[in-house]
């Protein structure tokens, strides 16, 4: 059923890849077997773990910073008209500033440091989270707010039981789109100014025209993302949504 159809799609993908590599030639597009072996070799040598680890660490830190600040900002702007009017121009500017510009400026102003890298990534993701959470904050149910007020619920209770559950779908959306955005930008940041990580490795492979290496890291990357989605994000989402009436 579900698993079977996914496996079938996967097999079709691999088959198409194999066919493509035969047509295009091993130099331009190495086949699955070549890349598979290269991937295995990288894993054996520990290089894969090292670079993936570095990238994952950057993703985690930048993501958390961007979500924390972005959420707070989004709630503030969603609940206060004044805040919204004041901060919106800044938000729109940051939202539309190309990722590359932010990264390059960060490196120019703060040097080729880890801090600059993380800040650049976080700044890229932040307006995205803010806009999404702001929508959630605008859509808050006033009736529940009033109920909480009459029952004299404490600030903490209201945050935990009234506000955050209402924001949950918006936080989920911001997380999903944000995580994939952060992944991509971390790679660029590593390519441009870091001595390790998947982006760095891909940069080296590019200079050496080592397509095998590029594809190997790309696949490892996608596999890790899928694992996070399947084993982390989806179970959390299911747990948080268990109060919803099931669709018929």
């Amino acid at each position, binding site marked *: 059923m579900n698993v079977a159809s996914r496996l079938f799609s996967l097999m079709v993908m691999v088959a198409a890849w194999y066919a493509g590599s035969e047509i295009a030639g091993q130099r331009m597009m190495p086949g699955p077997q070549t890349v598979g072996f290269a991937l295995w070799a990288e894993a054996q040598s520990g290089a894969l773990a090292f670079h993936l680890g570095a990238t994952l660490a950057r993703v985690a830190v930048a993501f958390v910073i961007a979500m924390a600040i972005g959420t707070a900002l989004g709630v503030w702007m969603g609940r206060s008209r004044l805040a919204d009017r004041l901060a919106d121009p800044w938000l729109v500017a940051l939202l539309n500033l190309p990722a590359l510009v932010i990264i390059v400026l960060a490196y120019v102003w703060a040097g080729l440091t880890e801090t600059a890298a993380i800040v650049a990534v976080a700044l890229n993701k932040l307006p995205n989270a803010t806009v999404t959470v702001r929508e959630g904050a605008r859509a808050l149910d006033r009736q529940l707010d009033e109920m909480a*007020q*009459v029952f004299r619920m404490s600030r903490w209770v209201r945050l935990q039981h009234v506000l955050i559950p209402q924001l949950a779908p918006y936080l989920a959306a911001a997380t999903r789109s944000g995580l994939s955005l952060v992944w991509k930008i971390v790679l660029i940041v590593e390519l441009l100014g870091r001595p390790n990580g998947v982006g760095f490795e891909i940069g080296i492979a590019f200079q050496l025209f080592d397509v095998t290496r590029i594809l190997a890291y790309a696949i490892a990357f996608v596999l890790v993302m899928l694992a996070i989605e399947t084993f982390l994000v989806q179970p959390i989402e299911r747990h948080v949504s268990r109060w919803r009436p099931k669709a018929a």
Partner: protein
Amino acid sequence: MAFTLKAGAVGALVGPSGCGKTTLLRIITGLDSDYIGTVHLPDHGKLGMVFQEPRLLPWRTVEQNVRLGAPEATDADLDALFGALGLAAHRHHFPGELSLGQARRVALARAFAVKPDLLVLDEPFVSLDAALAKHLQEELAALVTSRHVTTLIVTHSMDEAIGLADRLFLLSASPAHVVGEVPIPRPREPHTAEELAKIRAEIARVSGKAGQ
């Protein structure tokens, strides 16, 4: 607009739509502050409110909803309330799994669990079928009597008001004002046909007196 409700009594605000019953309630509970005048409540009075909508947190169970509204309620309190309102089987259900009548009961349980000094109900049985509404009115009356809770209920149904209240406050619109008060003699139920007729006559008299 002025009226007084004695401690332990059950008052009903009755009147047609638009005469300000809900607004009055919102002023009393502090939800609206745009008014001139004073509201006298007992110091640090605890409020229990039942809104027109159940207003339960959909992502928390029945029991969690009641506990969040009344954190000081003991397990024994909750057992008693759930038992009295027929909710024992639904303690760990989510509001999405309840019918409207059941959800209303949970809202009632939550308000009573607070052990309020003033219980306020805003048309709590509107849009329920007649049999269910009557049943819930009886449950409410039983709880109010046994716990001696000062209660203020807003309703547009004269029957409901007569059935539940010690005192009716008749409201009229344009401008919103209290037309008069009608005391309902105890015992509250069951009123005989004669008593009902007398009450209705008194209501008509008070309403007529004000030329409404």
